């Protein structure tokens, strides 16, 4: 059996993490679940353990990228073949993990990204994710930029629903962007010659906690991501 690890970076997600872990265990019983507690001040770890997840504890809040990378290091260390990454706030649907992993199992891609903007055959979710105008502009900007830079169509540059095979795991365990990593990850993967595939996914509204991004900070974040994307294109990468 292929060893699959589902990693869930979580910062103060006490309310939602238990449900997420439980749903992952139901949807993908053969997988191990690892919650990376990014220095939460609430009992995220206890909640996750109660529902049967393994928990990796970061002693202080280090940021999303660092948490994800910790999960990848863990996966590499323990020889997992595939890693899927999803959010701990209940916005990603665990039922989609299987289709996320499918292209990896068939050897068609090194990395799979769940895109909110690729339309699936049936869109019937009542609770479907509708980003705000500001967010849509930001997402549009980056999907345009990335599509241009990478020469392939990128529909959802900010998606945090990822799956990786061993090749991608060992590449990203070595280096992973620490803050707002999604966009830069796409650039790095492209430069490292990893085959990326986007598949349709639906995203739900968060069930608990608050978004890590506030409106005041968002302009700075966009500029920061823009810089890292463009600089990233010129950075030397070891293959």
């Amino acid at each position, binding site marked *: 059996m292929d060893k699959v690890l589902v990693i869930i970076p979580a910062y103060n997600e006490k309310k939602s993490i238990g449900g997420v872990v439980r749903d992952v265990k139901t949807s993908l019983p053969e997988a191990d679940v690892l919650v990376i507690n990014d220095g939460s001040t609430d009992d995220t*770890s206890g909640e996750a*353990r109660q529902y049967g997840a393994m928990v*990796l504890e970061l002693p*202080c809040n*280090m940021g999303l990228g660092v948490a994800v*990378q*910790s999960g990848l290091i*863990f996966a590499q260390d323990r020889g997992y073949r595939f890693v899927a990454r999803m959010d701990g706030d209940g916005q990603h649907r665990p039922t989609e993990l299987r289709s996320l992993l499918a292209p990896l199992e068939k050897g068609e891609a090194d990395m799979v990204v769940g895109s909110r903007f690729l339309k699936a055959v049936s869109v019937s979710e009542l609770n479907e994710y509708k980003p705000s105008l500001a967010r849509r502009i930001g997402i549009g900007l980056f999907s345009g930029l990335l599509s241009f830079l990478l020469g392939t169509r990128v529909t959802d540059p900010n998606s945090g629903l990822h799956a990786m095979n061993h090749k991608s795991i060992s590449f990203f365990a070595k280096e992973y962007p620490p803050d707002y990593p999604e966009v830069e990850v796409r650039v790095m993967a492209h430069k490292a010659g990893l085959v990326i595939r986007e598949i349709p996914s639906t995203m739900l509204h968060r069930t608990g906690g608050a978004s890590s991004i506030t409106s005041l900070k968002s302009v700075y974040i966009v500029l920061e991501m823009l810089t890292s994307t463009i600089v990233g294109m010129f950075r030397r990468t070891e293959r």
Partner: protein
Amino acid sequence: MTHIQILAILASLLLMFLTVELIRRKYLEEKYALVWLLTCIFFLLCSINLEILSFLARLTGVLVPANFLFLLAFFFLVVICLSLTVVVSRESQRQRRLTQELSMLKFNLEEIKKRVGLGGGEGQKGSS
């Protein structure tokens, strides 16, 4: 020797004393201290011999020697700031690595403890 000159010499000496003292107490590492010591020496030379500054100002075409000093100080501070952010970035990279190593070690330790039957086990302490 003018009053301002004496004041400048005293200030330079004070800065130098402070730097040496910081190194002695290990508040400042030698590799960073060298820049400051050299700066102190430059200040000291400039305040002892005013001609140095006038000469440098003439050389670069700056009309007032004092302005040359300001220009120099400005550049110096910018370079220092830049190198400090480089140091901070490098340190935070190391910190990230250490955090990740630590979390892995902790996980493995808890696992071993549980296997050996040392009790405790995961999450007894909680994180709240």
